Structure formats: C-alpha cells, structure tokens
C-alpha cells in the first residue's frame, strides 16, 4: 500500500548547478589578501604561502588580515574593506 510522506527539504532547495566565476588575469602589481581565522600558526602558514606566491611573480605583495575569532564569518563591512585593499582575497583557511 502506498504512503505519502512530506519531504523535509523542499525541491526548490535542491542543489543547483553552479558555473565557475569569471577568471580575470592577474594585473601587474597585484596585491593578494589572505584571511586568517586566528588559529595557532594560521598566520605563519599564510605568510609562507603569500611569500611563495610573491616570489613566483604572480603578486607584487600580500597582506594577512585576521578575524577576531574563528567562530564568526567575515562581515560585509570587513569584506568591503578587504576588497578595497587587494585584487584577490583567499579565504577558507581552517584548522
């Protein structure tokens, strides 16, 4: 005997195919921004990463911006300030 059940997740929320963001060439003198989540040694790791990318010639310089706490996402105002300082921002550095 058939049974009708309620979906806990509506169909309209099913994952939608996403296209890749437009890739832009890295301009000369580009600045790379790296977001640290503030965990131990995240800064050290990111600084090493930034130095490697600068030494490779991809970027002219890098800076690291550290969140006040790993537990909260970057705010819109913080995001705007970071985008004003850098051509590219790398986020998602975890534990």
């Amino acid at each position, binding site marked *: 005997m058939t049974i009708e*059940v309620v979906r806990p997740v509506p169909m309209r929320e099913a994952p939608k195919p996403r296209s890749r963001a437009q890739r832009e060439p890295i301009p000369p003198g580009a600045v790379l921004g790296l977001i640290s989540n503030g965990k131990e040694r995240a800064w050290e790791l990111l600084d090493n990463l930034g130095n490697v990318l600068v030494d490779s010639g991809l970027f002219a310089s890098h800076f690291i911006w550290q969140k006040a706490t790993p*537990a909260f*996402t970057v705010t819109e105002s913080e995001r705007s300030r970071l985008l004003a300082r850098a051509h590219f921002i790398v986020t998602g550095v975890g534990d």
Partner: protein
Amino acid sequence: MKDEQKPETIVAESYLAAVEMFFQQEWTDGLPIVPPTPQLVWELVESGGRAADEFLGELPERDKSLAVWQAATCAVMAGCKAEFFPVVLATWEALFDPRFNLHSMLSSTGGSALMGIVSGPYAAEIGMNARAGVFSPGNRANATIGRAIRLGAMTALGATPGLLDASSFGHPGKFSWHFAEDRPVEPWIPLNEQLGYLSTTTTVTVLPTEAPRQVAQRLNREPEGVLRTIASCIKNPSQNSTGKGTYYVVVLGPEHAALLHDARWSQQSVREFLSSQSRISPAELAKSGILPDKAQWDSRAPGRDAVLTTVKAENILVITAGGPGAGWSAVVPCTTSTTNTHPVTRPVAFPGSATRVVEPGPTLINFR
C-alpha cells in the same frame, strides 16, 4: 500559505520503501525514521500553535532556513509525539538566537552536540527522564526531542558530516541529547528559576557541548573533596576548552547533591568553588604536553600565573539529575569559549498562551 512555502510530498510504494527512500536521500541520522505523513506532520504543527510556514530562523552564511513545518516533519521522523513539539519549538528558538552562533556550532571540527536541558513542570508531564539513566537510551521524550533537533540540523540546515559539519570526531550525544533536570531539594532551585523564570514556566537551555565525563567520587564525605574531584575533571588539560574561559554544565548526581545540600552549600558557592579550582597554570598544561594557545593566554587571570577555565562562576551551570549509585556526577564541557557561544534559554510556549515569549525576571545567574 504561499505555494513556494508549502511543503512537498512524495509517494512511496510502501512504508518500508519510504524508510529506505529517506536513507537514499540522506535524510536520516543513520537510523531508520518514522515516515512523516502529512497527517502526522500537521498534527504536530497544530500542537505547537504556530503557522506552518512561519520561519523559526535562518543561517544566511549557508543560505539555509527552517520553517515550522520542517521542524514538525523532522520531529515526526524522530518519533516525537505531538505533546513533545512545544519543547522542540522552544529549542529551535534558542538555537537560532545569535548568541548561540548556530552556524559555527554546527560547522566546527569540535563536533558539538546540541544539548538541551529542560527545566520545569512540563518535562514530567510529557514523561521526560531526569533520573536513572538520564543520558542513556530508553526514554521516548528524551530521545526523540533531541533527535528531532539533529535531524532538522542535518536536513534543513545542511549539517551533514564531511560537508558543512566538519566534525573530526563528534560523539554519540550528537544523535540526541535532551534531558530533564531533576528538581533539587530546597533551598536549591532549578535552572528555570535560577534564570529568573517562574516555577510554573518550563524552559529549554541549549549549549554546544562535548561528550559528558562521568565523575566518580565514592569515598570522600567532605564537600570540598567532592568538588575538587569535579574540578579536576573540569580542568583536565587534554580538553579543548581547558583554560580558555568557557561554560560547563555540572550535573550533580543524587549522592553528591545531597552531601552538598546537607552541608549547607549554596548553588552559588558550589559554582564559585569550582570556578576557582578550575584555574590551571601554564606549567600544569605543559606537564601534559599542552602548549598554551592564544585563547588560553587571553584567559590569564589578572596578576596570576594561571589561566581561567571559566571566566566567572556563573559560567558553570549547576543542576541535579541522574540516578542513585555509588557516587556519580557528570561534567559536560562547552565545546568552545565564551567568545564564540553562550547558553541560551527559551520558555516552552503552548497554543493559546497569552504571550509568545515570557520574559524572565531578575536572574540569579547571568551567563554573559
């Protein structure tokens, strides 16, 4: 209800086929669910007294939200009876409070359970367990209310292990962890009254927690001795939160509660003693191989060579629960520091109540 807000249904060939379908869709916690028929879902929606399409909250960081009908659907899946649903709703209200920081607590590698402490008369009315085996399986209300919450987090909020739930380990409390507080002997008062609610108001207090630690203290009849044993558990160097200024729930079993009560210790004096005894020095941490990190250095007690596991005594919730034995209590650490989360409490509301949220009166403890 607008069309785009209406729940959608699927027809399965049989009851068992519906159960299997939910496994295939990854709409379970690894255990079989109760197929949520529209009739069962609407029965629970009505028991909560709120519109089915009302949003209980949203997590914009992950573009997810939860409506009353989804909470009801997950509660049916969990095996809840209709009378449990007001407790489920109060739990969701508390979880979506920004102070709890639900997005982060569902994401962290720390693997938090969503612990819910139910304090007040409604817990007994719906048959919740506060005594023997309080953290054990076997009680329908305890097990299904907590499970309803986790199922909602996993389905509607995307808290799936390996994806948006980055738990390295997690623990069995993530399946379900709601329990009732056992009303203490006067003059001690239950948690709802400590928080300023009337004794007739039932509350749910939520906190993101690690697994409980059972504390054994059978021989020492001195109150300070018992509390030092509990404090030694709180300041265990291997715990993530030790020395970082966090919250703890201390669940006093009946023997330890009676010992302290009979020696005329107040709940506040218990909190203060535990808080002071839970300080730990960098040297003690180093003995266990722990190199103090930034969070621990930030929690240094002023002028002292010690870091604070709890910033203040009120950050330790002292409640009574559990069954008789040889002398057991339990310590439950919050997964992270007070910088990142706080316990949140909401009253359980019922259909036809004059007010949705009953504001508490002056509180005896202030978490923040």
